[in-house]
């Protein structure tokens, strides 16, 4: 995981360091980049989401026979109509919030996304989705490469990672993405109080401002400290954000609250990374309650609160949310009422500019080994839409970037028209 980052520190720390703007210039940049600028919120479902339980082909007889204990009954799904191939689909019963966004025409569901010879490894899979490359999975991430195209000097808050570790997709050559798990906890505390504490902060800022070119690793640490200290005050304003509606109290809901707060306070962030875990459901997924039901509650309720919040503030039009996971799961349930690692899955995109609806065709779950919508002896879903074409659409049509250069190849042709 960390190899490329080491390489980056060795090869590019000087550029990284001086890519940061001086603190006094930051507010101007943030202002210039503007609140009206479009942003993207990437929601990663960690562990490999069982797409067939999210978007359910509930009339497919094989769906029920291959999942005797975990199939969602047709009577319970939230029907969303038929896909272009005529398959009737329903959302998981707990996704009532997403259903209302779908009904409002602001949720796009892209079925059977993935890539050829899909990896069943969490780590390799995550890195392939992150780098947008199946051959060089230890390089920079696709969002990181997008950030690298931002005009210098780059505001450290151009991106915001709500996780502690920098995920592969955000790894950049020139930009270090701040990790801000909680705006309220993102502060500098003193060994003393009052004026004495102010002296400490002044001194710590001066000490970290020394960026020695002959000691690149120290330069990296000090510039990270600088980025932290120079963004504290703006992040503190985000901590004062009080949404008008109620978000779930879980980590996902709180992370989305912070994202909405950053938008509300107009701090200029363009890329947000949010994730929620627990999707590696090898056992006891459940049906109308249980593990998967709870995952859907977390996902659906969080996104709905976020959507409503932005909608009420008039910020929906500048926001695009992309939801994905590193792989879909095996079609047939395993002996433990769960599902093992599979291949193709669904991506979802929502936002004010999104053309909602169902894109791509559902898999036919027939066990015939020649079934063209499946692979691995009809064990797993075969991809129809390359995930990178979805990235390409977002880069080109939403972020105004150049997907061919950011992704390193041309994936535009297969892109569904969700924007």
């Amino acid at each position, binding site marked *: 995981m960390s190899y490329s980052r080491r390489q980056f520190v*060795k090869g590019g720390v000087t550029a990284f360091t001086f890519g940061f703007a001086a603190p006094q210039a930051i507010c101007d940049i943030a202002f210039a980049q503007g609140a009206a600028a479009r942003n993207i919120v990437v929601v990663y479902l960690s562990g490999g989401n069982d797409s067939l339980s999210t978007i359910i082909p509930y009339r497919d007889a094989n769906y029920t026979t291959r999942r005797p204990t975990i199939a969602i009954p047709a009577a319970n799904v939230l029907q969303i109509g038929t896909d272009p191939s005529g398959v009737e689909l329903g959302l998981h019963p707990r996704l009532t919030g997403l259903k209302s966004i779908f009904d409002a025409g602001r949720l796009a569901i892209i079925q059977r996304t993935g890539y050829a010879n899909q990896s069943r490894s969490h780590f390799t899979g995550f890195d392939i989705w992150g780098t947008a490359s199946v051959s060089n999975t230890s390089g920079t991430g696709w969002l990181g490469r997008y950030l690298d195209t931002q005009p210098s000097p780059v505001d450290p808050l151009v991106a915001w*990672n709500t996780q502690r570790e920098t995920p592969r997709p955000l790894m950049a050559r020139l930009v270090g993405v701040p990790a801000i798990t909680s705006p309220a906890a993102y502060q500098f505390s003193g060994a003393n109080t009052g004026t004495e504490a102010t002296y*400490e902060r002044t*001194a710590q800022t001066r000490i970290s401002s*020394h960026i020695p070119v002959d000691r690149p690793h120290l330069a990296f640490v000090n510039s990270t400290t600088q980025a932290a200290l120079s963004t504290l005050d703006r992040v503190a304003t985000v901590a004062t954000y009080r949404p008008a509606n109620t978000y779930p109290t879980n980590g996902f809901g709180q992370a989305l609250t912070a994202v909405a707060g950053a938008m509300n306070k107009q701090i200029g962030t363009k890329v947000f990374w949010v994730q929620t875990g627990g999707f590696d459901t090898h056992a006891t997924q459940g049906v109308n309650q249980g593990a998967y039901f709870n995952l859907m509650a977390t996902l659906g309720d969080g996104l709905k609160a976020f959507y409503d919040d932005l909608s009420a503030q008039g910020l929906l039009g500048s926001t695009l949310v992309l939801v994905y996971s590193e792989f879909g799961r095996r079609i047939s349930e*395993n002996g433990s009422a769960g599902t093992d690692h599979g291949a193709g899955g669904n991506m979802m995109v929502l936002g004010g500019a999104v053309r909602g609806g169902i894109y791509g065709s559902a898999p036919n779950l027939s066990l015939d080994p020649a079934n063209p919508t499946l692979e691995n002896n009809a064990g797993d879903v075969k991809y129809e839409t390359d995930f990178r074409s979805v990235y390409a659409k977002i880069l080109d049509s939403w972020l105004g970037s150049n997907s061919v250069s950011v992704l390193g190849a041309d994936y535009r042709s297969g892109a569904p028209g969700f924007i």
Partner: protein
Amino acid sequence: MLEHILRRMGFGASPAELAAWKSVPIDTVIDRHLNYESMTTDHDSKIGRPEYVGITTSAGRPFSPNTLINDARQRWLFRMIHSQRPLEEKMALFWHNHFATAYSKLAGAVGQERATRLMDNDPSSLAGSPAGQIQVLREYATGSFPGMLLAMAKHPAMIYWLDSQLNTRTRPQENFGREIMELFSLGIGNYTEADVYAAARVFTGYNWQLVGDRASNDTSYYTFLYRPNDHDTNAKTFTFAIYPDGGKTIPARAAAAGEQDALDLILALARHPATAQRLAQRLYKFFVNETSEPDTALVNAIANSYLGNNYNIKSMLRTLFQSSQFRDPANFFQRYSWPLEFVARAIKETGWTGYSVNSAMTPLTNMGQQLYEPPDVNGWATGPDWISTSSMLSRMNFSAALAQNQRFNLARDAQPYRGSSDRVLEYMLARFPSMGFSTPATTAMADYLRSTAWTGTDAQLQARVPGLTRLIVGSGEYQFN
């Protein structure tokens, strides 16, 4: 040199420990750390005694490090600070990262008490209960690597962590079979997908069972169980040699004898040159230098010590610690301190009277390293990946809280130098060794001490000496080990 050795083979030294080691020849310092078997194991008996760092019990519960995970975390940090066998704890941490297993998945399945036992049970705490995973790693810390691999494959914590209990003859499940090759031994690129499927079949039948007073979470525990009926008795063929004669096929065996399959595979994995290289590289980065390309000659020497000495871990460590590279000043401070290393060393160098290791638990989580909770089976992302804006804030704020807590001790220690702020600074920079500060940085510290006119009064010492401590311990320069 001495401080370097104490940092690398342990977690640094308190001023008193440093003074005690000063008169000991360097070779002896290394030898005593490496061959720690003769050193006492009485560290746990010191827990709760006033001259050592404190612990904090949960409301209404006695200190329960075998059944409450937060208490287990406190016990382990206590050992890192006070064990007379610091290398044992250092290696346990290294192996914890290598065989990364997370408590939360276990607790979700079996509850906190049993899950805590699975992670780090001390067998003497309950008759019949087996050692927890980390305790097993301590026992094998410098011993036989194939022995350790087998102990991990059979440990109930690992069984559940990587779903071995679901891996059966009729429904093979590849989770453990893949990771033992990808992460625990060979490394990616040295095996094929077919090998993964074969390895999964090798471990079919490996399971766990609940033993003891099943009605009680406190007095029941999990042990390994081999279920012959679940074992795949067919032959398994690999792409690499399983046997010294080059044979690549584990023969078909009766179900009752099927456990032998795993022994054959594990020995083959341990013998494989890719495993030797991988372990040597990881040890090199952990103990010598991770900021530049590894010294190939030393890595090869470490790997050869392993291959030539029955896959023994201490042979590798001996080669490493006795090498000239280990003592080369060019390699000093060329590792990013893991959060646990940073915290333990900061406590040892700052002082601990009246400080509880419990106060370090939330900061450690925010720095990205909660004990018994690696992010996934791949372990923690180390090196530069420890460093982010929020983790640096956590490191700085931990330094501030620790210094605040120790303000009277720190101020007292600085009293002999109170006549001049520059002498105080000089003393403090010597007390907290680092890669060395530039002149602008030390000027900033000197200016800090004189934020208002220097008087050297007790009141000023009690504000500025802790303030200076947090500046040094929270600096970039101090984050390297």
